[in-house]
């Protein structure tokens, strides 16, 4: 009896909590409304199922509680009912899967005009690289990493010379243009997670991963590493500043490219001779 009432109260309480609690998805600042839509569809469908099954549970528990001389019925199976339930559950599942896969099809298809920004993770900080005027990131290898060449660029790769290097945990990007975030880690797994952008991906040492998004709101957003990366994991923060195009261009032009650093490396190599 009391358990029926308790389940009812918890069910209603959960629905009210959802409707009135101050906590929900942090307002979106990218193109990924299709992800938010899929979240919302999932909420409506699962919410309806949650209320329906639990209401039935409450009803059954209260109505069929043991009383004097009460006896259960004997009904081992009901093939028709079981088939109906299977069918409608499958329909519900298809209803959920459709918006989910639709959004994922968008996720895996990088727009052709997306501009490339590379984020590099290491314990426990972020740095960034832009491909420069040629639009191509120079090749990198862990074996080139040194104090003079923290990004590990290949000094002999001509594509790397104009790469813009941001040795800082703050990066600027322009608003309204699709961006392909290319991710690289020097040491362990990390995760480039800006909750407002929705899209995100792990950084995997030894390979290059990526995802894309279009920032839609000018502002300052925090990058939270979301893949455990050692004792400093919780301190691994960065900042993405979404600018209008001209502010962004002005900022990017002030950043240094790999060329001078590269010259230094060559000098070093020559001196060591």
């Amino acid at each position: 009896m009391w358990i029926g009432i308790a389940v009812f109260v918890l069910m209603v309480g959960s629905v009210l909590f959802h409707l009135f609690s101050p906590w929900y998805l942090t307002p979106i600042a990218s193109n990924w409304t299709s992800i938010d839509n899929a979240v919302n569809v999932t909420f409506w469908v699962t919410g309806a199922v949650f209320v329906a099954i639990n209401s039935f549970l409450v009803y059954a528990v209260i109505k069929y509680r043991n009383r004097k001389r009460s006896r259960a019925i004997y009904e081992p199976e009901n093939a028709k009912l079981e088939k109906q339930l299977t069918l409608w559950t499958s329909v519900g599942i298809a209803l959920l899967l459709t918006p989910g896969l639709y959004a994922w099809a968008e996720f895996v298809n990088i727009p052709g005009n997306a501009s490339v920004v590379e984020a590099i993770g290491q314990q426990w900080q972020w740095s960034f690289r832009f491909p420069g005027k040629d639009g191509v990131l120079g090749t990198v290898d862990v074996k080139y990493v040194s104090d003079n060449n923290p990004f590990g660029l290949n000094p002999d790769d001509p594509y790397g010379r104009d790469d813009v290097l941001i040795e800082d945990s703050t990066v600027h990007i322009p608003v309204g243009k699709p961006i392909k975030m290319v991710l690289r880690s020097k040491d362990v797994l990390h995760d480039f997670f800006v909750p407002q952008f929705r899209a995100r991906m792990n950084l995997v040492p030894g390979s290059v991963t990526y995802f894309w998004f279009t920032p839609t709101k000018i502002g300052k957003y925090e990058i939270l590493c979301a893949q455990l990366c050692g004792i400093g994991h919780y301190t691994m923060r960065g900042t993405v500043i979404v600018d209008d195009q001209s502010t962004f261009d002005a900022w990017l032009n002030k950043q240094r490219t790999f060329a001078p650093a590269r010259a230094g490396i060559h000098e070093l190599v020559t001196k060591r001779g």
Partner: protein
Amino acid sequence: MVYATLAEDLKELHHPKTWVGKYVWSQDHKVIAVQYMATAIGTGLIALVLSDLFRLQIGFPGSLSFMTPELYYQFITMHGMIMVIYLLTALFLGGFGNYLIPLMLGARDMVFPFVNMMSYWVFLLAVLVLVASFFVPGGPTGAGWTLYPPQAILPGTPGREMGIILMLASLAIFIIAFTMGGLNYVVTVLQARTRGMTLMRMPLSIWGIFVATILALLAFPALFVGAVMMMLDRILGTSFFMPALVSMGQQLGYNGGSPILFQHLFWFFGHPEVYIVALPAFGIVSDLLSVHARKNIFGYRMMVWAIVIIGGLSFIVWAHHMYVSGMNPYFGFFFATSTLIIAVPTAIKVYNWVLTLWKGNIHFTVPMLFAIGFIFTFINGGLTGLFLGNVSVDVPLSGTYFVVAHFHMVMGVSPILVVFGALYHWYPKITGKMWNEKLGQLHFWLTFIGTYLIYFPMHYLGFLGMPRRYYEYGQTALVPHSAHMLNAFITVVALAVGVSQLIFFYNMIWSYFFGPKAESNPWKATTLEWQTPDTPPAHGNWGPKLPTVYRWAYDYSVPGAPDDFIPQNVPADGTSRHHRT
């Protein structure tokens, strides 16, 4: 006769003569079951205390002066691993599997009693190795229970020196122990059922444990090789999971390995592991509902097939843990589809549980309360799985508190509610004593309501985007003050739930010594374990002659029958109607 070989009493039983032979080096499945249960629950207590300690850090950062980030990560890691492997897996399969399989199937013991005994002692060794890691230089590993390389074995992660090695060794030893037990359970189910106990007359508890054991025998080897390979990477410098990398400014000698390979191995084990825990819980809760609602389980055959289908599908959904791992994103289409398909047989199980209560004669005994609590909690946890399984919906939620809330609801609280229900249900048979009803009720209410208050609101921290495994949040713009307040609230409730478990331990221990003597079949249940000549059952279980089974396990409230239950070993007569099996 199909069952002739092992079901017949061809082998003479050698009853142990010494106390040590009876209770320590025992080959009796019932003693081994209790040994497994006690060890698993004892280890689980460590995990419970750890969780309350790190919850204090989350709810009230800095409140424990000794709680460094190192210790925090070590505690969450050990909590997770102990709960999943050393508590839940060991308790359901080693504990309930050992106790119930021979008794419910009408066997005298497991088929290989000596191997069964070895299984427990090797399991104990695994626990000791695990616990030893608290006392070695550097402490236990703090790599997170998923132990993802490269960080698990690199500087910058606590316990990198010895802790990780002991963890991997302990897992490998556990898997050896489990394999000895698991082969036993499977062979016993297939070969040692008594006369008349067809597969489709087995209680669902046995079906759940049986299929879970098969899953475990197939899934644990993936973890085993993963553990061995990581151990080689750590000790011998091989590069199975290690690419070329710069650790703390230092070029290391690794080259060409794949961190994602480990994740595939881990989750190829890890997802079936969810069902290794869930299927025994599904089976046991079905029996609890049926017995205490005095009604047959609804749709028995469908329930059996759902268990088998869920078990099969659980092997092709593992990469839903890896949607944002950097694996080929096109895998997402397949794994999202397979994951959501598994929701269909799971939903059928939920419907059938509720339909079992429908038109039943529900007795609100303590085991029944836990069973109903399980249904509610499991519905909640199951539905949030539809968020995380659905690839694009998972993207913003992966690695946040939404995930923590989901898996605690679905494979933490839900199975543990079943564990409690099952312990209350079978305690009178195991000990011959009855526990205190009032204390049992109190324990239920505090645990059921408390755990829901912990985990339901936690989902919303995940929606905000709060990542899990953070020692502290400091000043983070997207974490409002109210979220910190919520975390403090959750911690307070977690402490209360933690402390309230003392009621359970008090009840179990006090009743063992001072509780009233239990009847041999206090719940008026049909299954064979309640029909033993002695309570607790003696060595060999059945006295001189094995029982013979004439009907399925669910003849409750059969029209025309004088009692509202007909035990499985009662011959069919003209008056009673029994299920076609």
